[in-house]
C-alpha cells in the first residue's frame, strides 16, 4: 500500500519526493598472492649473440667445413632485482631467435633456458629445438610451457648443439644474432624476495558501477539529485611478507584520463610475517575508512576502467630475503556504509 501510494503520488512531475536509507553492503573483494604479481607475468629479455660467441671474427672473410658447437653461451639475465628464488608450477617460455649471422643456423639447434650458469644438462629447465634450418635474416619462434622448476635470481640462455653447414669466404658483421625472450610465471609455488627492495604490480581492468540503476542520475534517469554521504570501509588482511601501498585509479573509456582515485594518498597496509617455508605466521589486519562524496560516486559511475597499483616493499624485514609460498595473501574487501537520499 505504501509503495502504491508513493508510486501514485510520485506521478505528479511537479512534486519532488525523497527516500532516505542507511545501507550497509559489501562492494568488492579479492585476494592478492604471489601469483597475482603482474611483474612476474611479463618478463622480457633481449639477448645479443655476437659472432665471437660462435668463434667467428667480424669483418674478416672466414671459411668452415661446418660448425658444431655444444653450447653457445650461457647468456645470463637477472629475472628481477628483487627476486632471490622462484619455484614455478608453470612457466611460459616464449621467444624468437633472429639470425643476423651470414650463415644458416641448422636444424637441431636448441634454445635452452637454464637455472645456472653451468652448462650441464642437469640445469636445463626447458628448451625449444629448431626444426628447420634458419637462413640468414630469418627467425625462429617458439612457445613452450615449463612445469615444476626452481629458478634462482637469474636465468641463463644457451644455444645447445649449435650447428651450421659448411661455408666459404663469409664475412660476419658486428650485428649480432638476436634472442628475444619472454617469461611468464603462470603459477608459482614459492618465492624468496630480497629484503629492503621495492617493486610494483599494476593492472587495468574493465569497470562498471551499474550505470543503469538510476542512482546518481547524471543522464536524467527516473531518479535524480541523489545525495550520498557515508564511508567506504576497506578491510585488509595482509599475510604477505611485504608492506603494501595501494591506489585504485578510475579511468575514462579512453584509459587516458584519471577521473578519480579511491584513496587519499595511498592505502597503507603493513606487511605480515612468514616462516622459512613461506607459510604465514602473522597477518596484519586493518580497517581503513574512506569518506564518500556524491562527486566520487559520480566519478565511479562514469569510469570504465580501473587501474590498480600495488607497491610492495620489504623494508625493515630481517634477513636477506623473505619467503612466501602460494598460501600467503593480501585479502582486501570494500564495503559501503552509505546514507543514500534519493529525490524522485
Amino acid at each position, binding site marked *: *500500500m*505504501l*509503495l*502504491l*501510494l*508513493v508510486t*501514485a*503520488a*510520485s506521478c505528479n512531475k511537479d*512534486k*519532488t*519526493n*525523497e*527516500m*532516505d*536509507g*542507511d*545501507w*550497509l*553492503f*559489501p*562492494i*568488492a*573483494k*579479492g585476494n*592478492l598472492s604471489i601469483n*597475482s604479481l*603482474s611483474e612476474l*607475468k611479463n618478463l622480457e629479455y633481449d639477448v645479443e649473440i655476437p659472432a665471437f660467441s660462435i668463434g667467428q671474427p667480424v669483418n674478416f672473410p672466414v671459411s668452415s667445413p661446418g660448425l658444431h658447437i655444444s653450447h653457445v653461451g650461457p647468456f645470463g639475465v637477472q629475472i628481477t632485482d628483487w627476486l632471490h628464488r622462484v619455484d614455478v608450477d608453470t612457466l611460459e617460455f616464449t621467444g624468437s631467435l633472429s639470425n643476423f649471422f651470414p650463415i644458416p643456423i641448422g636444424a637441431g639447434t636448441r634454445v635452452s633456458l637454464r637455472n645456472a650458469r653451468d652448462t650441464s644438462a642437469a640445469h636445463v629447465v626447458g628448451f625449444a629445438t629448431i626444426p628447420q634450418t634458419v637462413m640468414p635474416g630469418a627467425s625462429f619462434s617458439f612457445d613452450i610451457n615449463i612445469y615444476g622448476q626452481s629458478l634462482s635470481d637469474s636465468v641463463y640462455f644457451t644455444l645447445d648443439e649449435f650447428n651450421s653447414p659448411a661455408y666459404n669466404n663469409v664475412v660476419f658483421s658486428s650485428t649480432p644474432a638476436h634472442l628475444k625472450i619472454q617469461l611468464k610465471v603462470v603459477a608459482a609455488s614459492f618465492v624468496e624476495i630480497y629484503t629492503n627492495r621495492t617493486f610494483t*604490480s599494476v*593492472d*587495468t*581492468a*574493465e*569497470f*562498471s*558501477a*551499474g*550505470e*543503469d*540503476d538510476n542512482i546518481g542520475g547524471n543522464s536524467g534517469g527516473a531518479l535524480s539529485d541523489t545525495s550520498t554521504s557515508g564511508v567506504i*570501509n576497506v*578491510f585488509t588482511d595482509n599475510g604477505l611478507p611485504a608492506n603494501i601501498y595501494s591506489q585504485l585509479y578510475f579511468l575514462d573509456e579512453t584509459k587516458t584520463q584519471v577521473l578519480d582515485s579511491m584513496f587519499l594518498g595511498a592505502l597503507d597496509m603493513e606487511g605480515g610475517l612468514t616462516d622459512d617455508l613461506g607459510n604465514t605466521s602473522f597477518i596484519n589486519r586493518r580497517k581503513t575508512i574512506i569518506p564518500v562524496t556524491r562527486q566520487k560516486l559520480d566519478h565511479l559511475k562514469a569510469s570504465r576502467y*580501473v587501474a*590498480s597499483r*600495488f607497491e610492495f616493499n620489504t623494508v625493515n624485514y630481517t634477513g636477506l630475503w623473505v619467503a612466501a609460498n602460494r598460501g600467503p595473501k593480501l585479502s*582486501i*574487501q*570494500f*564495503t*559501503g*556504509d552509505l*546514507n*543514500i*537520499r534519493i529525490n524522485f
Partner: protein
Amino acid sequence: MKRIILFSAAMILAGAAVQAQVSIGALQDGHNSANAARHLPTFLGDHFRKVQVTVFNPYLSLGSSFASFEDAREYMTADRITSGMISNTIDKLEPEGNNIHGVVDIALLNVALNIGGSDGRKATVGFGVNERVEMNMLFNEDLLRLAWNGNKQYAGQTVNLMPRFNGLAFTEYYVAASYNIAPSFTDMIIKPAIRLSYLSGQASIQMPKDNAVSLFTESEGRYLDFDFNYTVNASMDADSLTLEGSTFNINEKSFRGGAGSGFGMDIGVRVSPRPGLSFNLGIMDIGSIHFKNGVTNMFNHSSYRYEGQELTFAEDQSINLDSLAGLAKPNYTHEAYTMKLPTKLILTASMGLGRMEKKSGVYYRHQLTAMYLQGFDNYLSSTKKPYLALGYTHSFNNVFNLGANAGVGGITGGTFGVLASVKAGPFCFGLHSNNILPLISPSSGRGADLGMLLGLTF
C-alpha cells in the same frame, strides 16, 4: 492490455479490506436477500413470493490493516513526500501480518424460485453467474523498513523479506437449493441450504504460506546472506510471467477464461425457533480451482552469501558492481497447481420486531442482526482475525429500508456502515456498506466498501 490494467487496477484499488465479500449490510436488509444468499445460502428464498432476479449487483471493498484514508490523502495531496511521512506510516505497521486486501464481486445474474408448499415457500432453488476478483498481500514491517530505511538498522540480524501475495479471478456458475423443514408440533423451522458452483478460473497468483526470503547483514556489512525459499505460481491463460533481475514482467494477457477450473460449495443451516427469530450457521467458499493453462511456476530454493564483486587483480578482469540483482533470479517450470477458495465460517442471528403483513409478504419494522465471521487463513477475503458486527434496519412500510451497522475485529479493526433500499412494486434498488468510516473519520478509517442492489421480485 487494457484488461490487464483493469485487472491490476481492480486488484490494487480493491487493495483493501473490510470483511470483504461478506457484507452485513446485505444480510440485515430484507430487500437484499438475493445478495445475502450469495454469502449464506440459508437466505435463499427469503422475502419474495415466487421469483427473484438480480442483475449486475457489484460489490467493492477497499482497505488495509495499517493505512488510513487520511494517510492516503496525505500522500496524494502532499507537495513532497518526505521520509518523515513514510516513517510515520511505517510506524503504524505491525511486526507481522500487515494485510492489503480487496474484493471486486459482481453478481451478474442471480435467479431464485420458490416452489411447493402451502405458502409457496417450502423449497427454493436458484442459479446464477458471478464474477469474483480477490487479492491480498501480507507482509512484515521489516520489508518496508528495509526498503525505505536501508539494511544498516538490521546489522547482525536476519530479516524475512518475503511478502505473501495471492490473487484470484474467476467466474462462478452456481445452482442453489434450500428446504424448509417445519415440524408439526412446533413453530420451529429448520432450513438447510446448499450452493454448488462450477468455477472457471481466469487468472491467479499464488504464494504458498511457507514462502520465505531472508537477509542477514553482517554487522560490518562484510557479507549478506540471502536465503531463498519461495515459489510463485501464476496462471494467466495463454501467456507467461517472468522475473528478470528486479523487474517483474507481465506480458500481454487476455482474460478470456479457461485458465483453470474447479468446484465450490457453500453450506448452511438456519434454525428459526419462532417467526421473526433466526440463527444461521454457514461455511462459505469450500473448494478450489485447478489452474493448468498458461501456468508459470517461479521458484528459488537456495542460499547465497554475497561478499562483493570478486576481484582477481588480473589484466583480463571485468568488474561489474551491479551484479547483485541477478541473485534472486528464479527457476521456471510450468506445472499445474491448485488454488483453494478463502473458506470462512459465518454465524448470524436476527430478530424482527413489529411484525407486519402485506400482500407481498411478512416484514418487520425493526430488524436486529448480529454476525460473526471467522476465516481459516489470512488469505484472499479470509482472515483469521474474527469479525463481529451488529446491525439495525428500520423498514418503512416495506418500501423504504434504512439501516446502520458497526463492527469490530477483522482486518481493519473497526467498521461503521449504512444501508438504504427501496422496493417499488417488483423493483428493488439499494446501496449497502459495511464501512463508511473514512467518510466520518478519515484518520481512523482503514477500509471502505460499497455494494449495490438492483433486482426484481414477484
